[in-house]
């Protein structure tokens, strides 16, 4: 445990053994060290401490730039055209400028998670005390904070112990952001190295936030059988007053639940949520309901169902105040980071605020005290529900939809504005003629961004048309989700070691992040189930965890009902909200300590090298949208875990692609012999955008391969890769010979065709190494 510095000033002290006068004692930090693991080489790494490791990765996976914009507009020299080989007024090149933008993005993401963590931790320490013990999984979890141990070299015991971690994060983010100022860093790979640093800091922030809330708020503690929660618009009891919470920072929402409980109103008021606050509120109370990912914000508010809207921070639509005003639902902003121009009524009496809301005197207020939010939200919802009678802004019936559709002039501006290029004009045309099926179909693929509406010269509420046309569908949205379980138990990791080396589990796939999907939620659910069926371990978090549950199979079961929540072959493991992503990284880190007893403490590079070369995990952010998603991905890259994104992911400005055609790129040290040997192009890429679900699935299967795979393990991975390729692309993958090291790697049922393929590609046998990229990890033979 660590404590921040102390200052002691003593004017005069007389005792039997000493007389002290005007003594001033300053101690920078008190480090009461009860942890006997020796400190590793890199506790609290600075911007350049891990630069060599970053460059090792980045030289294998060179950035492949996809400039979103050819210009730099950051200083008053600009705009500077950087296309071709041009340089800007400050001398910056296009690659450096792209990587610089990525760094800014990653800093925004990391600061958001760390800011969230700080806010949450301050609140929890105030409420529960700094000495409140961290507990993420009782006896099932030995390593409570793998990322913190690995990066900072400290072992947190109480909530207060998390403070120095955030101090460090805040310091590093400041340094990182400074790097992006004009005239600082000039070389793209140095920007990229700092992107990875930002990602690692982001992972720390996430871990702090989640272990603090799991411990203090009593969330499920690494529980594979955490309860199922209702999911979907159709699960809401609209006969009751309904509160909607949106965002990521859960305390105001838990106070709502507490107030309801205190007043025995739990079964009288519905608490519903969107985004990660929704996920976290179901970890707090199984009575709470999740409406859906971010895409549901507009459609749910416009449905008129919520009576009060409570927002905290992150991924909250900036027009929520206007939208909620339209349905006459008061809005309560609760975060310093998201005040929306509202009057601060934190110190006003509850009665007055509630009165102003119910009488319509005020449409929104900023209340920074979570306890007060709890009471105001509940009392307002009860008071206002009978008055507003679920007033909605959606067209009220088919005739209303048709009437609005008839105003359309087919100017096509809506389609041009749509990020997914959905065929809106044709659907509206059909609707004008009474056929709503086109709009109804669009609902499934719609991101709910509402960008179609502003360009419409006829002022048609196009998004509302879509939602109203799909009315039956929305009422049928009655799914369920396994509530976020938090960490993975050590014992679960031990249990899968055998099946992984025996080739029974092909890999670990984590579906994480936002909902900016190319084709709606369904694809995430389909991918999750396909990989679970193939006996991969599937993890979910954030909006993707919700999407995974929004689909039923032919037996009417959702993914969470069909597959177990255990970290095992064919399990679908929801870890929780965005900040719970730290547990997925944590599981990978723990593998190194559990199986190889590698010391974690302040030992980032060695562990990343271990994870990169041995742990067959892939992250998939199919709808990655935010800056946070960029930071989360960067955290995984630095640990050597590849990430696949959907087509919108190309807007992150560059991919990190390996070149399987360059044999020289893929040599590793064999730690046994010290020789450099060809390890094969595994994993082939570190950051890859797939255009379609099919392309993604084949790539995911391919990216689970690692140079240490046992032959049985590799055979299983190859069997899945080849089978998916055959089904989704057609034929044997043209590069399959690159992944066969010895003939025992060939999947049994495909032997003939693969051996023919190997023969055609003049394949040569290669040894299976004990792989590492770090020369210092070469095994030194013991004397004697």
């Amino acid at each position: 445990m660590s404590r921040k510095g102390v200052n002691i000033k003593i004017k005069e002290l007389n005792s039997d053994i000493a007389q002290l006068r005007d003594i001033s004692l300053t101690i920078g930090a008190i480090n009461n060290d009860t942890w006997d693991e020796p400190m590793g080489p890199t506790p609290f790494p600075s911007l350049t401490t891990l630069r060599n490791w970053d460059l090792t990765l980045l030289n294998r996976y060179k950035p492949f730039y996809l400039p979103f914009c050819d210009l730099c507009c950051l200083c008053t020299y600009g705009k500077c055209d950087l296309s071709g080989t041009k340089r800007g007024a400050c001398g910056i090149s296009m690659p450096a400028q792209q990587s610089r933008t990525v760094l800014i993005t990653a800093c925004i993401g990391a600061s958001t998670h760390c800011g969230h963590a700080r806010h949450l931790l301050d609140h929890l320490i105030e409420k529960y005390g700094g000495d409140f013990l961290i507990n993420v999984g009782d006896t099932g979890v030995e390593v409570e904070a793998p990322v913190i141990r690995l990066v900072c070299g400290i072992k947190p015991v109480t909530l207060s112990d998390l403070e120095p971690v955030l101090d460090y994060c805040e310091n590093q983010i400041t340094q990182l952001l400074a790097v992006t100022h004009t005239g600082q860093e000039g070389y793209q790979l140095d920007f990229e190295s700092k992107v990875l640093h930002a990602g690692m800091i982001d992972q720390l922030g996430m871990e702090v936030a989640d272990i603090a809330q799991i411990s203090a708020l009593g969330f499920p503690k690494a529980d594979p059988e955490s309860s199922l929660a209702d999911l979907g618009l159709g699960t809401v009891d609209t006969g009751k007053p309904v509160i909607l919470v949106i965002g990521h920072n859960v305390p105001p929402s838990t106070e709502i639940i507490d107030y309801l409980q205190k007043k025995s109103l739990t079964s009288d008021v519905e608490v519903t949520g969107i985004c990660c606050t929704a996920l976290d509120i179901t970890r707090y109370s199984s009575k709470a309901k999740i409406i859906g990912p971010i895409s549901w914000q507009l459609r749910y508010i416009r449905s008129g169902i919520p009576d009060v809207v409570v927002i905290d921070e992150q991924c909250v639509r900036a027009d929520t105040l206007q939208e909620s005003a339209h349905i006459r639902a008061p809005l309560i902003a609760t975060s310093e980071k998201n005040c929306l121009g509202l009057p601060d009524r934190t110190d006003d009496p509850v009665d007055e605020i509630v009165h102003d809301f119910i009488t319509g005197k005020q449409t929104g207020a900023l209340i920074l005290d979570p306890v007060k939010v709890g009471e105001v939200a509940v009392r307002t919802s009860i008071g206002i529900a009978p008055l507003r009678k679920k007033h909605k802004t959606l067209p009220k019936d088919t005739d209303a939809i048709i009437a609005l559709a008839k105003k359309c002039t087919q100017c096509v501006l809506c389609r041009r504005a749509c990020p997914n290029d959905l065929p809106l004009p044709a659907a509206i045309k059909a609707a004008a003629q009474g056929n709503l099926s086109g709009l109804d179909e669009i609902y499934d693929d719609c991101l709910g961004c509402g960008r179609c509406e502003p360009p419409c010269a006829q002022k048609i509420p196009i998004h509302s048309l879509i939602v109203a046309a799909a009315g039956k569908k929305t009422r049928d949205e009655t799914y369920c989700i396994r509530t976020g379980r938090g960490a993975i138990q050590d014992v679960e990791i031990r249990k899968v070691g055998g099946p992984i080396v025996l080739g029974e589990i092909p890999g670990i796939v984590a579906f994480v992040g936002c909902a900016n999907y190319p084709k709606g939620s369904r694809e995430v659910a389909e991918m999750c189930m396909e990989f679970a069926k193939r006996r991969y371990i599937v993890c979910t978090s954030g909006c993707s965890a919700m999407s995974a549950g929004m689909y039923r199979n032919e037996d009417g079961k959702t993914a969470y009902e069909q597959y177990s929540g255990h970290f095992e072959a064919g399990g679908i493991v929801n870890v929780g909200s965005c900040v719970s992503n730290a547990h997925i990284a944590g599981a990978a880190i723990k593998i190194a300590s559990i199986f190889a007893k590698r010391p974690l403490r302040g030992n980032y590079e060695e562990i990343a090298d271990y994870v990169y070369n041995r742990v067959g995990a892939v992250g998939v952010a199919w709808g990655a949208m935010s800056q946070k998603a960029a930071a989360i991905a960067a955290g995984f890259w630095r640990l050597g875990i590849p990430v696949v994104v959907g087509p919108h992911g190309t807007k992150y400005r560059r991919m990190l692609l390996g070149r399987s055609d360059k044999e020289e790129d893929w040599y590793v040290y064999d730690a046994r012999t010290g020789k450099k040997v060809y390890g094969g192009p595994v994993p082939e890429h570190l950051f890859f955008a797939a255009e379609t679900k099919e392309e993604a699935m084949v790539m995911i299967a391919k990216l689970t391969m690692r140079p240490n795979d046992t032959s049985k393990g590799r055979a299983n991975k190859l069997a899945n890769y080849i089978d998916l390729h055959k089904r989704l692309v057609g034929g044997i993958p043209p590069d399959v010979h690159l992944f066969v090291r010895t003939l025992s790697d060939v999947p049994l049922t495909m032997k003939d065709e693969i051996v023919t393929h190997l023969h055609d590609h003049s394949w040569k046998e290669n040894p299976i190494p004990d792989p590492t990229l770090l020369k210092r990890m070469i095994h030194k033979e013991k004397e004697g």
Partner: protein
Amino acid sequence: MFENIPVEVGLVHEGERVRKNDMQVELGGPSESEKFEIVRVLPMDQVTDGKIEIIGPDLSEMEPGAHYPIGILVEVAGTRIETDLEGVVERRVHEYANYIEGFMHLNQRYDIWIRLSKKSFKKGLTSFTLIGRVMHELFRNELPIIERVQITFITDWEKIHPLYAEAMATYEARDARARGLSDDDVDEFYGCALCQSFAPTHVCVITPQRYANCGAISWFDGRAAAGIDPKGPIFAIDKGECLDRENGEYTGINESAKKRSMGEVDRVYLYSAFGYPHTSCGCFEGIAFYIPEVDGFGIVHRGFRQVTVNGLAFSTMADSTAGGRQVEGFHGISIEYMRSSKFMHADGGYNRVVWMPSEIKERLKEYIPAEVYDAIATEKDAESVADLKTFLETHHHPVVKRWIKEEEPAEETTGAPVVFSAGDIPVTMGGFRVILKNAKITAEKVIILPVKPPVQKGR
């Protein structure tokens, strides 16, 4: 490979389930009292490679939705195949059958339960000949030591009955042989380096009386795997000379361990948790942990979530023994090893076991000597070492006798760890008077380390 099979054959179909409504026909399963699958090794001249015979109605002749008895007899021959490997080969039937799309195979031996889906039947999977062909192809490809295979499917109840009895007798004989086989009876042990992909210095030694730590690989499995692919991750270890019968130390094992662990481990005791205990990776099923206060061992298995009698949980102790290291007194083991008569033989076996979770104690009941069974405490009897001491004394556990024998004055007395907080910094200790004036003491960091008592060694 499977061009003439009307359905897909591949790993991806392995976990497939065929539900009752989608089922064309059911073979074996809970509705049938007699069913079996068995592999027999025969002399070369008694096996016709590729022959597939069906006795009784074929799939196409069965009534849709009904259930039938089933016997699957796989007869194999080869110059290097031996009767001891029948069981290992037999388990492949389950695996291969499940590769076939729409052909669900559960359990093994006399307990098999098979369903064929309507969809695969419609696609043309209408005869056992096709199933047999798939199995034949896979046997020949995966297990080159099998030179000839013939397969018979029996669905006629009359014909199954006598074969069933014969199969049951064979299983029994096989089990008796496996139980009776001792480390002295064989010349070769097997090493498994599969876990080295995650734990580079760990190697399991697998003997008839010491299962692999993961519980997944027996000596027979090892023998088969090493025979099939001598260069593979499971390899033969020539026993060499027995150096220490009690502890189970062999020159062959020591040499192999040294080579495979790259010098990290050069001596291994097979049957002791002290001295040179067998290493563990991370996936062991249980831990035997030494409790110095009572000079006995506690045992805890992976599934036990509470803290054990020494105040530590499985996960905490597992952390102390994993990673291919030799840690005296913390010993990663498999459940199967606990059934072995060589289980911690050198340390006293079950006579030295003082505590185990009730669940595992019950599971191992028939392997724990009756005279000590009641003297082993569980979580219900003792939650602390003090409780445990009392329990062992009142139940006359054999370790109690060791206490008297070994009681000797404590070697060193270590005082309570000196820990001080910022509130009471001892500027000096007795006998002096220190006067500090206008002193400014600045420290960048103060590190306070508890003084730890030295860790007590095992024996």
